[in-house]
């Protein structure tokens, strides 16, 4: 091999490095801009208005786990969130939109609140009312997080928002925020 061939080979290698670098950088930037946007999320109003109309299902993990194992050919999108979590509140409308637009296409969204139990009445229920949440909201109240977090997914560090999309025995776990487009894409993969 002569010098020119080596040079070409090296250049080719570097092109890949540059492409990779570009890819990762652009991904990262994209992620950051999403996150910043999320931080402008709506402040949750502390509204203690009339909340008698809401029946909130509350479970410990044992009671809740059936929602991770429904094998009826439906696509379930299970999102772990809380009213105090800015990025979660920011992405809720995307889950609501999926639930609305794909509800008749065998897709169901389940919003699992990790709010503190003493704030169910003063924060969670008013939030559901104010934001006209149509997806099913359930509250998971189980302090033994080290036991149940790995049962939801072994890779979950415990940070929220986190989401599982599953259909029968196929599931995908996301410890991240979504845009509507990404959430829709991931949902569509399960509808194929």
């Amino acid at each position, binding site marked *: 091999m002569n010098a020119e061939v*080596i040079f070409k080979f090296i250049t080719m290698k570097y092109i890949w*490095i540059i492409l990779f670098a570009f890819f990762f950088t652009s991904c990262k930037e994209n992620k950051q801009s999403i*996150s*910043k946007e999320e931080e402008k999320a709506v402040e949750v109003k502390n509204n203690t208005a009339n909340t008698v109309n809401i029946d909130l299902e509350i479970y410990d993990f044992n009671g809740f786990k059936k929602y991770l194992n429904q094998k009826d050919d439906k696509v379930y999108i299970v999102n772990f969130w809380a009213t*105090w979590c800015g990025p979660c509140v920011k992405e809720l409308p995307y889950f609501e939109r999926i639930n609305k637009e794909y509800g008749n296409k065998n897709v169901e969204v389940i919003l699992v609140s990790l709010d503190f139990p003493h704030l169910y009445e003063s924060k969670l229920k008013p939030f559901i009312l104010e934001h006209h949440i149509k997806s099913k909201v359930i509250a998971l109240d189980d*302090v033994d*997080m080290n036991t149940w977090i790995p049962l939801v997914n072994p890779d979950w560090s*415990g940070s929220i*928002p986190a989401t599982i999309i599953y259909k029968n025995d196929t599931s995908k776990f996301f410890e991240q925020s979504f845009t509507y487009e990404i959430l829709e894409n991931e949902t569509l993969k399960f509808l194929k």
Partner: protein
Amino acid sequence: MKTPVILSIMMITFLSDFTEKNVIKDSGYQIGDVVSDFELKNVDGKMISLSDYNEAKGFIIAFTCNTCPFAIAYEDRIIALDKKYASKGYPVIAINPNSPIAQPGDSFKAMQQRAKEKGFTFPYLVDEGQKVYPKYGATKTPHMYVLQKTKKGIVLKYIGAIDDNHQDATAVKTRYVENAVDALLKGEEIKQTETKAIGCSIKV
């Protein structure tokens, strides 16, 4: 003759670069890893490094913040950890990993105020440029790391939660961080080296 050598070096450089990046991106330090020192600004304006602590046997590093309800729920317990273990050689060092631009409630000024209000007995450091938390693989607040000084360097011994009940400190059954530090003090193996808990994602 030189060609294969040059190409091998190129390939090795390329591959090792790539692997390293993936490791940092994906997970951060694992249990048993030697951690590198840092130099971060404390709420009193002074720069703090692990190497400043000549007497320490190790550290309880708390990635925490002003704004997360889980972090707030654990504030008093982090203070209690420092009171109990600083004198035994395991002081608490708190690091706020959130970007103040993304989370104004975690600005330097707000941190100073919080440290004063709560009477923090330990440093509360700014992760300026958010460079330290990814090395540890911290993903949320609060996220705890127990480190031990050894002959080979400062080694990561525990990652995870403080205890098993964020809602009620009086109902705690297992104190993960205390168990880990107690084991290190006794020269025993830590039974649970990693635990999971819900927390607020780090704001970038």
